[in-house]
């Protein structure tokens, strides 16, 4: 965005670029990443059922009973908490890269790659930290 004067243009129009560009993205991520996580959980359960039903000869009722037996509500909550933290990490790193990008189209490409790599690494570390905290605290 910085590349072709847009951010400066926003400032000159007396529009705060953080409020205009970052806040909506931040809110969208905070809502949508947990939503996507819930969706992912459903798909995971469905996939588990498909494997049990068609490859391992479980019946459907057995799968549901076993699944409920071994899963805990806390598993769901901890996943949701992680998704919110990951959303925060991703949006902070990505928006920072976007607001400070320089160097034309090539710069935008590089900033995107850097942001993806940094966000992945940060999430990896944060995942380990959160898992540790949940394991010992719960």
């Amino acid at each position, binding site marked *: 965005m910085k590349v*072709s*004067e*847009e951010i400066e*243009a926003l*400032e*000159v*129009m*007396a*529009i705060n670029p953080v409020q205009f560009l970052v806040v909506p993205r931040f809110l969208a991520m905070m809502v949508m990443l947990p939503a996507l996580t819930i969706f992912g959980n459903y798909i995971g359960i469905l996939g588990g059922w498909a494997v049990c039903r068609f490859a391992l000869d479980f019946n459907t009722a057995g799968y549901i009973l076993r699944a409920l037996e071994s899963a805990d509500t806390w598993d769901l909550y901890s996943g949701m908490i992680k998704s919110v933290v990951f959303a925060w990490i991703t949006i902070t790193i990505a928006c920072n890269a976007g607001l400070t990008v320089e160097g034309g189209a090539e710069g935008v490409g590089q900033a995107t790659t850097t942001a993806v790599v940094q966000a992945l690494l940060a999430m990896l570390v944060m995942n380990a930290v959160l898992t540790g905290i949940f394991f010992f605290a719960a």
Partner: protein
Amino acid sequence: MKANGKPMIEVDRLVREFGDRTVLNDISFNVHSGDTLVIMGGSGCGKSTLLRHMIGAMKPTSGTVKLFGEEITGMKEREILRIRLRFGMLFQSGALLASLTVGENVALPLLQHTDKSVDEIEEIVEQKLQMVGLTGFEDLRPDEISGGMKKRVGLARALALDPELLFSDEPTSGLDPIMTAVVDELTMKLTRGKGMTAVVVSHDMTSAFRIATRMIMLGHGGIVAQGTPDEIRASSNPEVQQFIKGEPDGPIPLNLSQEEHEHHQHVKPRPFAGARDRFHRKTG
């Protein structure tokens, strides 16, 4: 409208240094209400830097800039916002937001800063786009229109709030001669007709002499010459004459020798070094 009390813009002993390079050195001038000031000068002489100081996007090393009688150099970001509502700015590239349509781009300042209804805003957008000759382009995206059109949309957006003061960074570069005349005429209609003040950075001499009531020529970080278009045209300064006539030979240095360049950069230039590696990396 001229010289009624305080000037619109007062630039006083403005100095800006980047590292040990002085880009602007002791610049002082005033712009009065209703004036059209054209700032000209060769590439890299500090025209755009000067403009950025005048809109409060850059802070000077020393000296002051006053807009509407208020000093903006020491102002906090929040206070500058109030001043910024009173002027419009046209950027060199147009600086349109790529995610919004042409109409939404022009409507943006109105949506953000006024309580007007959607119908009223639509009407204003239509009127502003008509002023720049782009009726019916509301629903196109910036990547669907040409560079010159983007610039005209940028102008429509800069005028959306009917500013008292308009800054333009090269408003006519990249426009065809007819469109240049249209934009010039529009600028004159707003300044001569409605009393708007304009500051235009340009090196299009035809356009500059058409619209200007005052002119400043920058060079070597300072003001080489200033005055009315007639005074500039009659100037005995050889640099001014070379610039307005566009002659290749004269007192303005064309470029630095390699030796001078090395001295400035402190590195030995290696033309095309690494180009092969970059090429392979991208294709491989």
